[in-house]
């Protein structure tokens, strides 16, 4: 019997990832859609990377509920732009709730079917039992200190996405670091944006480490819409890949605290170095969103991708939000496997990043964090 890893090996693609050509402005146009958890998290660090990268034209930041509620995330995003001196970047608050999933049901599913069993995959973000309410906005700790003076745009994130992609056909890269609720709404409202989007980068799901992650099972219906749409290019960072690099590996944090400028140094000192020193057993988080940012900034850091089919389970049970993958080179060649290895009827196509040059990733990451604030 063939295992999924055999299938992967079978379909391993020769890396064809050339440096993505820049747009006419010389910069890659990017919409940054994120469940922007503060004060510091994989979400926030990816934001810092994209703010610091020279070749990125950050058209706007969209927020979406998951790690936190969208209102709280928006407060963090706005103030982060202020303390980074980038108040010109517009922030759009996106979906406050998933398309259908609710906190009560998420809790009951866990009671009935058990939580997700691997590592921290049981994480429910703002649907956690003791999480704050949807409209509560807690004060921001140092170095944020206070709420921003700049305000979020009045337009919903989905409308901004539609308008921007239409105005820049074939040029916009969609970075989706949270659930795909905003993207799914945009696709439902305007299916015409799909073929004129340059690339969608998404983090979620996995084959070996875990069959899902919160970005998918927080809003499985949106994920299904997102992955099934026929994007010209849909790139996925799986939990398998993200697990390969953790924040505290190789002394990155100490190097950043030592060499970075304010406020990045303050953020890393306060929220990575101090907790780690106080508790050496602390398991720092993997770097999923940073990997997505790295892919947006310099895709040649990744060793290659596997062409695959992907689909999402939306049954309201213990498998809600699971991801399923199939080899894209699948052919029904008859014989004993005939009819046994085909993808689902409406599966989407995805390029699953299958390896990362850890050394170059570390160099890129440390460079972006320690260079002068842009």
């Amino acid at each position: 019997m063939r295992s999924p890893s055999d299938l992967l090996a079978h379909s391993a693609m020769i890396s064809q990832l050339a440096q993505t050509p820049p747009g006419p402005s010389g910069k890659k146009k990017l919409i940054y859609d994120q469940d922007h958890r503060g004060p510091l998290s994989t979400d926030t660090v990816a934001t810092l990377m994209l703010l610091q990268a020279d070749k990125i034209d950050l058209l706007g930041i969209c927020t979406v509920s998951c790690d936190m509620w969208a209102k709280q995330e928006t407060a963090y995003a706005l103030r982060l732009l202020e303390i980074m001196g980038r108040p010109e970047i517009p922030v759009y608050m996106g979906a406050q709730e998933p398309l259908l999933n609710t906190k009560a049901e998420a809790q009951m599913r866990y009671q009935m079917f058990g939580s997700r069993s691997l590592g921290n995959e049981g994480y429910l973000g703002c649907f956690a039992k003791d999480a704050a309410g949807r409209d509560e906005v807690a004060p921001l700790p140092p170095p944020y200190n206070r709420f921003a003076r700049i305000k979020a745009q009045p337009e919903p994130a989905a409308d901004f996405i539609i308008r921007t992609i239409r105005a820049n056909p074939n040029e916009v890269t969609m970075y989706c670091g949270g659930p795909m609720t905003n993207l799914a709404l945009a696709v439902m409202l305007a299916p015409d944006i799909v073929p004129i989007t340059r690339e969608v980068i998404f983090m979620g799901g996995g084959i070996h480490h875990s069959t899902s992650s919160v970005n998918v099972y927080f809003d499985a219906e949106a994920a299904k819409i997102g992955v099934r749409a026929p994007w010209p290019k849909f790139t996925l960072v799986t939990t398998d890949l993200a697990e390969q690099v953790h924040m505290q590996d190789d002394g990155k944090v100490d190097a950043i605290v030592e060499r970075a400028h304010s406020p990045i140094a303050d953020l890393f000192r306060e929220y990575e170095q101090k907790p780690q020193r106080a508790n050496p057993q602390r398991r720092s988080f993997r770097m999923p969103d940073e990997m997505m940012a790295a892919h947006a900034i310099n895709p040649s850091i990744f060793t290659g991708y596997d062409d695959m089919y992907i689909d999402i389970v939306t049954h309201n049970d213990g498998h809600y939000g699971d991801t399923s993958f199939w080899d894209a080179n699948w052919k029904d060649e008859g014989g004993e496997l005939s009819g046994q290895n085909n993808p689902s009827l409406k599966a989407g196509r995805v390029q699953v990043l299958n390896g990362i040059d850890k050394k170059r990733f570390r160099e890129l990451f440390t460079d972006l964090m320690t260079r002068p604030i842009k």
Partner: protein
Amino acid sequence: MTTTRREFIKTVGAAIASSQIPPQPAAMGEAAAPLPPPGPAAQQSAAKRKVIYDQDNSGPFGTDILGTLMMLQADSIDLLGITLVTGDAWMKQEMAYTLRLLEMMGRTEIPVYPGAEFPMLNTKEEWQLRQQLYGGHRLDPWMGAFNRANGGPNEIKQLPPPYDRPANLKAQQDHAARFIVRTVRDNPGQVTLYAGGPLTNLALAIALAPDIVPLVHEVVIMGTGFHVFTNAFNIFFDPESARKVLRAGWPKCSIVTLDIAEEIHEGDEIAPGRRMIEEIAARAWSPISELFQMHAVEPLRRDPNLHFFRMADEMIAAQVIDPSAFTKSEEMYVDICITPGPRYGDSMFWAKNWQAVPEAGKSVSAADRRVFVDPRQFYLGPPPSAGLVRVLQEIDRDRFKKLFVDLMTKPIRKA
């Protein structure tokens, strides 16, 4: 080969009459038996009721179009806009019919907004496979835009008489969901949402702007059922959107179930020897008379065995125009099954007072016994996120038919 009821109605017309009955002369209408006066909401009032009409407006004739005609004709209605959604037909085909219908009715001031072209998740191919896997829907096999014989979302078929040609009138640029959000915010507490098709546009609107939910005056929805069948087209075409909309917690959400919609059919007799559609064809003004003549009366003559369709959308219109036509309603919890299995799109209802225990010594009717059960023994309540809605349960048939015939036969309303 037998044709299913709904296909038949959609292709040939909306009603049936015995071919022995001659067309009714206009004068016959005057002899109609006196009916109770219309309710207060139907009377001309200073403030007209503001309505957004969301519909899968499948032409040339049928329950969707008749609901539209009622709303166009009612003097008490301020029709703020028509929003279209793929359902009975593809949205673009519906657009062609709707724009031309407004031209024929001389109501080109009403803006028409294009809405969702596809359901949230459901697809034609998966639906067909589900039918193979779990069995088809024996009672109501209609798949609307997904009917096997239908083309794709961009195919626009030529409009038959009396539509005759494409409209000069153009659709608005804005998406239906955005129009709904904007309009509800501009008219807080005043807008009634008529939802005559799948609930995709409404689901999109409340996903974009959850703040509009408490600002809506009333939502009237067609779909779901307990007895006739639990699986209604408007719901199972897009169950995920239906779940979202029914759970939203509107100030007032009224549902026309299939149970009540089945009670009255378009070709029913309204008086001994007189069928409703013939009465209307004879007495109505152009273009309503032509629509009834060409798409109801003539098909009946060709085939006396033609089935009538139920008056589902007309009942939503009645609830908006004259709610006193409905004599009984009950608040209930509702939820929609979205598990992609044999029950995908089924509706489930729970009594609002499921926790009630009968008073000691008080007799309990057999009908109430289902509800009045000791909650310490059984949990009979709804799931945690089910929506509370008002289910219309009884209709004054005579009043409803009079309202319908009056609206169809009165002079065409001016803008």
